């Protein structure tokens, strides 16, 4: 550690450049993982708020909520308890005079079932009839207010926003909660036959008891949300590659610096300084550089988090970022392993001659 610190302090410019690169990589990794988490959350916020363990869909819907329809007979046969709720989902465009149109996900609920009952209202109240809605907070941020009259798509029917709820997004679109009757109207379905899109269950082992229905685990259902897995895989690859790049950078820089200083290490070995001590020096150096880079990168990320506008799909999961920081430190140690091996095997005789 003594030699590591002394060298870093003496060669400030050289090591500042290495740290600067680690800072940029760390910052990029943190922001990308923030975006990945934020976008993943916006795909699943509403589902998470339902505390679902399993979801029953039309067997032929290809695990797609929008394509699934469940009949009244099927719902009756499923024998719902207080742990299940029927939902009807449909993508809609919400319009109001003089305000920008919002693409949203309409979710129809039954007032007596658990999702509607447990819905947390941040302002206003719950919907009490077929013409009342509870909208995601995003609408409030975009200028919508309690009591505003809105229309869906090209329909002339007006609905009133009576409440706002937080963290209600599905497939990255804000959710508008209404009644199942309204959902039927939006889908132009003949009344009396189709009940909803899916049955959401808080228990894992719930069965629809109908050969036309299939139960999926919540995690499988989420993984099949349109674009969800592809998006997460893309971010995962980007973060993984950045990790590998950080490893290559630290390995290349330390290797070059070690090769330049090899005669000096050889002399120190000749004087009897143990190889283990010199190896510890290079590992300490790598850890110090990585730690500095990670801390500065984290500070920049925290500043960015403060400055970023509301609504940007970014969420910083501190335990996950901490795990990534540890991962980066490990990359630093692995990156230092090659130059460390070079030091461990340096032959003083080759430098001295003879």
């Amino acid at each position: 550690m003594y030699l590591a610190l002394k060298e870093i302090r003496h060669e400030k410019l050289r090591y500042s450049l290495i740290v600067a690169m680690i800072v940029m990589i760390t910052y990029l990794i943190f922001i990308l993982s923030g975006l990945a988490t934020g976008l993943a959350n916006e795909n699943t916020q509403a589902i998470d708020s339902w505390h679902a363990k399993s979801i029953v869909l039309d067997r032929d819907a290809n695990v797609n909520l929008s394509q699934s329809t469940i009949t009244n007979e099927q719902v009756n046969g499923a024998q719902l308890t207080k742990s299940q709720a029927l939902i009807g989902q449909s993508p809609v465009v919400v319009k109001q005079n003089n305000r920008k149109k919002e693409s949203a996900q309409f979710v129809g609920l039954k007032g007596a079932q658990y999702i509607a009952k447990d819905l947390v209202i941040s302002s206003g109240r719950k919907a009490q009839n077929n013409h009342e809605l509870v909208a995601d907070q995003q609408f409030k941020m975009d200028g919508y207010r309690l009591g505003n009259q809105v229309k869906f798509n090209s329909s002339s029917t007006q609905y009133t926003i009576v409440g706002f709820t937080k963290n209600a997004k599905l497939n990255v679109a804000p959710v508008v909660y209404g009644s199942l009757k309204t959902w039927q109207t939006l889908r132009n379905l003949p009344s009396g036959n189709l009940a909803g899109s899916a049955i959401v269950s808080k228990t894992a082992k719930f069965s629809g008891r109908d050969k036309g229905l299939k139960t999926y685990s919540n995690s499988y259902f989420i993984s099949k949300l349109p674009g969800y897995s592809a998006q997460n895989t893309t971010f995962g690859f980007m973060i993984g590659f950045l990790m590998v790049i950080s490893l290559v950078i630290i390995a290349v820089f330390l290797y070059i610096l070690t090769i330049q200083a090899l005669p000096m290490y050889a002399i120190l070995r000749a004087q009897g300084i143990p190889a283990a001590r010199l190896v510890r020096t290079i590992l300490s150096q790598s850890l110090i550089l990585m730690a500095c880079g990670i801390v500065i990168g984290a500070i920049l990320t925290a500043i960015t988090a403060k400055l970023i506008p509301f609504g940007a799909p970014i969420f910083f999961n501190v335990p996950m970022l901490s795990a990534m920081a540890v991962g980066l430190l490990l990359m630093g140690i692995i990156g230092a392993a090659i130059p460390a091996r070079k030091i461990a095997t340096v032959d003083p005789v080759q430098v001295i001659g003879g």
Partner: protein
Amino acid sequence: MAVIELKNINKYFGSGTSKVHVLSDVNFTAERGQLILVVGPSGSGKSTFLTIAGGLQTPSSGNVIIEDQAVDQFSKKQRDELRLNHVGFVLQAYSLVPYLKVREQLELVTKVKPKGNLDDRELKELLNQLGIDDLVNKYPSQLSGGQTQRVAIARALYANPEIVLADEPTAALDSARVIVVGKLLKELAKTRNKAVVVVTHDARLTEFADMTYEIMDGKLYLKDLAPVDK
């Protein structure tokens, strides 16, 4: 009493037709209180002799005995410990750590070997003798070649080894400094009872030496050209 003894040392490099016999049946003894010079032309095997004597490399055959211990049987770690505690190397090139000030070069020795080094008074005296007491806060890049060499000598002596092995310690020094270093090495041998072996081209040092050897074609001779082992 001999502190270094080389018995029938042979060293070969390469193999087959490119095999080179660098040291041939070398016998050598250095005792405490002696300053011994080993001279010879480039490529004669001086550095090989020095590195074998210091336990940096092992001979192809023969025995190296330092402080009654057969070094040629030692593991790498044991040889590291031997060099750290008993042998001080003064080398020509790259001898100082570029990012450590002179006082930190000495601190590094303390960090690796906390006990048995010179005390503050002895260190001050040593730095004063070498004329580098006002350079303690300078980096190697701020020193002349001669100053760098004197700091390297100070660092080797600071660890207070019984044996000092020096490779061209006066290579970058002017005549006045050669006399200073020559006297210092002699005093080191005499008053501190060390065995000092110097490999050099510098004929100016011979006046300080108790014995001068010459290496020629891998064989070690006394300066009068009589083979040592005969």
